[in-house]
């Protein structure tokens, strides 16, 4: 099921880099939103480094659809701009399907430079996968937890 498109120029070397606390914030928000889909935005830099995670309201209030609350989006966009940063992606949960972008996710992806994270809540342990969506094509990228503990 994993389709890795190797060597695509726009995504070669692309990854999402975040801390364990940021990952936990995102997953916890999605779990709290169950049975609805949870969603939010990331602010970061042009290298895919997440600087802050911003859970938002889901305007659709649905288990099948998410729509980042327009006022939350405006506030986060302004704060990012004031800090010389920008919104670099969005996350949302799939409460009962696999964490792969759906046709709707692909069709409605707003920005080809963004990172799109799907938090899968289908199984007991949440899974988090990140993608670039460009011209209707999905490219999975690694989620790099920058402060992961690796005992030796």
């Amino acid at each position, binding site marked *: 099921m994993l389709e890795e498109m190797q060597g695509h120029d726009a995504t070669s070397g692309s990854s999402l880099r975040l801390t364990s606390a940021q990952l936990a914030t995102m997953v916890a928000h999605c779990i709290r939103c169950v049975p609805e*889909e949870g*969603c939010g*935005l990331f602010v970061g830099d042009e290298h895919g480094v997440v600087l802050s995670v911003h859970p938002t309201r889901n305007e*659709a209030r*649905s*288990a*099948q*659809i*998410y*729509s*980042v609350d*327009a*006022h939350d*989006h*405006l506030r986060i*966009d302004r704060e990012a701009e004031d800090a010389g940063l*920008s919104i670099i992606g*969005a996350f*949302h949960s*799939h*409460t*009962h*399907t696999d964490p792969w*972008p*759906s*046709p*709707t*996710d692909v069709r*409605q*992806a*707003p*920005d*080809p*430079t963004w990172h799109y994270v799907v938090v899968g809540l289908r199984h007991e342990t949440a899974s988090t996968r990140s993608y670039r969506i460009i011209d209707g094509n999905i490219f999975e990228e690694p989620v790099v937890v920058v402060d992961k503990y690796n005992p030796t």
Partner: protein
Amino acid sequence: MSVAVRLPTVLRTAASGQAVVTVDGGTIGEVLEALQRAYPAMSGQVLTNEGTLHRFVNVYVNDDDVRYLDKLDTKLGPDDVVSILPAVAGGTH
């Protein structure tokens, strides 16, 4: 009247890279029509070909989403700032 319009990253290429542009209009509808006339590469992305607001775009006057005001008929004042952001949405299917 001249109105400042903040553009989302995805539309800036169509405006020669500018993040904020100034167009004339007294309502949101007039401003968005003027925007698409000034930057034809944006045609169909903010207003549909039928002249309605594209469903995947959010337009704000200052802090307010125009869907909760008067939509395209929302009147603008001299210090109002219009912002355009893409809708961020998707779903299971």
